[in-house]
């Protein structure tokens, strides 16, 4: 890398390193990822803090998020004004929280926000229903969904008000054996380099089940 990069000043990079869980190299790589989404929009010089915002359509098409049922929510939670459009700062923020270095408490806080679809600071039954439907792609019947939601509220609602507050949620989620991994994301997987993503698309079109096969075959 050396000192060649002119995208950020040293102070900016240091500040980003203090505010995220990333190293310098990773921040630059994330910037590249961000820029790859819309090369014509994002300038190569960020020392002047240009006000660039990428629309949700572009963010949501990233391979990390593309298959995630909650991608819209994630983008909304991390974007500055809640509409899913993201500046570079928001982008870094999002991956910092999703990275495996982030502590559980932080993840739990953001997970709560993600699952709180109507932004009323409580996860109520309608939020739960939405979550179940997104997770199962509407495969469960209404009764089943209802039962599951009731069970969840019965289990996790400590103060018995019929909805989950942030405290309830944290109490429940911190104990989950799998929680450390679920919020981990791999922003640096290569599927993500433009070449990989392009090939993946191509492979998807050619045959559904041989996607992985083809992709790596060509990557050789």
């Amino acid at each position, binding site marked *: 890398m050396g000192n060649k990069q002119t995208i950020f000043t040293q102070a900016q990079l240091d500040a980003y390193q203090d*505010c995220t869980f990333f*190293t310098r190299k990773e921040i630059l790589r994330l910037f590249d990822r961000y820029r790859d989404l819309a090369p014509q929009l994002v300038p190569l010089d960020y020392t002047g803090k240009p006000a660039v915002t990428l629309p949700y359509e572009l963010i949501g098409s990233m391979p990390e998020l593309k298959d995630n049922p909650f991608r819209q929510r994630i983008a909304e939670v991390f974007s500055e004004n809640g509409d899913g459009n993201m500046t570079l700062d928001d982008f870094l923020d999002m991956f910092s929280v999703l990275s495996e270095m982030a502590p559980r408490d932080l993840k739990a806080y953001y997970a709560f926000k993600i699952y709180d679809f109507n932004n009323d600071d409580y996860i109520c039954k309608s939020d739960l229903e939405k979550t179940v439907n997104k997770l199962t792609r509407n495969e469960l019947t209404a009764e089943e969904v209802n039962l599951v939601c009731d069970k969840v509220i019965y289990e996790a609602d400590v103060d018995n008000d019929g909805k989950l507050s942030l405290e309830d949620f944290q109490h*429940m989620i911190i*104990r*989950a054996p799998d929680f*450390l*991994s679920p919020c981990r994301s791999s922003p640096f997987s290569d599927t993500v380099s433009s070449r990989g993503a392009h090939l993946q698309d191509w492979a998807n079109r050619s045959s559904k089940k041989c996607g992985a096969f083809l992709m790596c075959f060509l990557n050789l």
Partner: protein
Amino acid sequence: MPQHEKPTTVKGNDGSDVDNEEGSAAENEENVKGTDKVGKRATPRTRRGHARGRTRHGDEEDEDDEDGTRRTGYRRHRNRRGRGRAAGNEGSDSDVDPAKARKNQANQKSKDDDEEEEDEKGGKSGKGKGEKKQDKKPDKKGKKEKANKKKKDKKKSGSGSDSDSEEEMITEEELAKLKEEVEEKKKLIATLRNKPWKMKKKLSVLKEAQLFVEKFEGALGKGKGKKFYAYKVMMTKKWMKFQRDFENFKTACIPWEMKIKEIESHFGSSVASYFIFLRWMYGINMILFGLTFGLVMVPEALMGKPYGSLPRKTVPRAEEATAMNFATLWDFSGFAQYSVLFYGYYNNQRTIGWLKFRMPLSYFLVGVGTIGYSFIIVIRTMARNANEEGGGDDTSFNFSWKMFTSWDYLIGNPETADNKFASITTSFKEAIVEEQESRKEENIHLTRFLRVLANFLALCTLAGSGYLIFFVVRRSQKFALEGLENYGWWERNEVNMVMSLLGMFCPTLFDVISSLENYHPRIALRWQLGRIFALFLGNLYTFIIALMDEINLKLEEEKIVKYNMTIWEASLYNGTIPENSTAPPIQVDPADVPRGPCWETMVGQEFVRLTVSDTMTTYITILIGDFLRAVFVRFFNYCWCWDLEYGFPSYSEFDISGNVLGLIFNQGMIWMGSFYAPCLPAINVFRLHTSMYLQCWAVMCCNVPQERVFKASRSNNFYMAMLLFILFLSTLPAVYTIVSIPPSFDCGPFSGKTRMFEVISETLEHDFPSWFGKVFGYASNPGLILPFILLMVLSIYYLNATSKSYKEANLELKKKLQTSRRK
């Protein structure tokens, strides 16, 4: 009380003094307004004057009375100052106050976050800060009072020059407070990334905190420790920078990180966990390799006697013709056998080279050290994993966890995502069904019957494979007795081939059997792992028992050879110098000297061969089972009568359990054999390195994501437990041979001793002072060791009991919590 006015003003001045001190720091930044500067210049003189005045005053006045007024003075001043601050907050942007207000905000953590965010949205930050200011004020006052009380105590103890010291105290106190604040800012900077704020806010907070720290760090160093403090600050800055660079460097140094991430994004975390495990094993083997290579092989190669100088270092005459053939070398005999790769090559000379390197001792200690190191590292990792897992064992949040944590955020592949959706749906359905039918369970008898049947079948398979290996090993002994030359390739490699084939086919058989049982995939994986584990273990132990038989045979043979040797030597001497037996022995070419069978090298060779053939089988399985199959399915799908991709052959899935167990057992063989073949860790490092690349390629190229995608986070310690078990089992035979079988008389570093561990007592005798040997002798006395073991057992029992009681208490609390919230 006119006199009492004086102290009040003094106090006021003092306070302004402090304010000015803050200002003086600001002045360094050239941020301060002119008026402040004037005030500052004015103060020192006045301060001194007041101090003098106060000294006089303190001499005259009654102490308690003065204290009382002073306190009120304090308060008054404090109020004034606070008001001034608030005003400054609302009015202008003085440099200090917003930063302080920020700090206050930071103190009230996440609970206030929502409020703060509202503030930010509204842009009415001034109001919010003002409120907080007021919250803070009483607190500050309280602090002051406390400080005053302290002062009172002090005053009671010493009177005369107290006011002077008091003045010192005040600045010191302020300094301490400032220091505290700076520390807090620093802490804030360090933990900023953990705050759930938007990046913009984080950046601005960071900037202000940094400014604050920079500004006041210089001011803090007033007085005696100034230089030291500045130095300390500078060093901490440098240290932080170094740490950050080092952190950057460290993350760049983790090998294969990108490869694993790539796999993770395609196949989910369970497949990636295998590769992470592989990488971990690679690290351990690197260290084992470093130990054996650096402390055993290299010294022997550099400083030991060269090849051909001793019988044990020379290929015997009969084998010389074929010793360089590839087939021989591939079999690890010939020149490979008589090299540093195997135990037999090492000489029993106590020290070698100009370094006086204790070769036999080093050999022994490295052998023990590798095992000890492996134990420590496995147990440490297990403990850490257990800590991380925490108390995730209760099932009270079954549905909630399913809902909120079942999605694997690592999935970046549509196909895997499809499978994941399906598996989540089924898991929900299963949970619902379980919930509804937890009372009925009509099919319980059928399932029970099927499970018993499955276990019976698995046991049969295990017994059959055990018998097969036993049979084959027996047969190979017969072949070996009759001479291998009469037999073909198959007879020679029968044992290895049969073991590899069993390892290949039995797991699939178990898979079929386990489909009878109808367990949840995670439990099914456990069963599968357990069965394959038993299979491998049985195979390994049959192999070892057969090896033991062979060792006994070799020991018998050795006796005969020893007897023959004496006859041969006698005949040698008889022929030439019959009377002078003390004369130097006659020069015989070392290749012609008859030699014993050297069972240690034989054992080492067996393990090396087994490892190599195991590696080969794995690679060939990958190439044929995965790659060729994928190629066939992919390209013949165009001209085939049914859909190959979705139909019968399909693409293969990555078999996590089989691969993990293969890795673990391979490691077990390394642990067992590395004492007799120092090259084994090197071979294993090579194997792991290549298999990392090959398997990464194979999994990305020819495998499809599993249909039952599940997360592997909990199985991690399960793997570790198996590894520990295998480590224990593989040390058993190694330690048994070291302790209870006499080493060969004419090869290896321990030749000439009755037991291998005698090298320790020999070293104690020669290299340590005599008292040390005595102490060691006492310490190894059974009278001391037995009580020590007893003590250890008792302490283990005690710790176990306490941990159990803690667990129970935990459970009790959990129950209480549940009952209390159900009310």
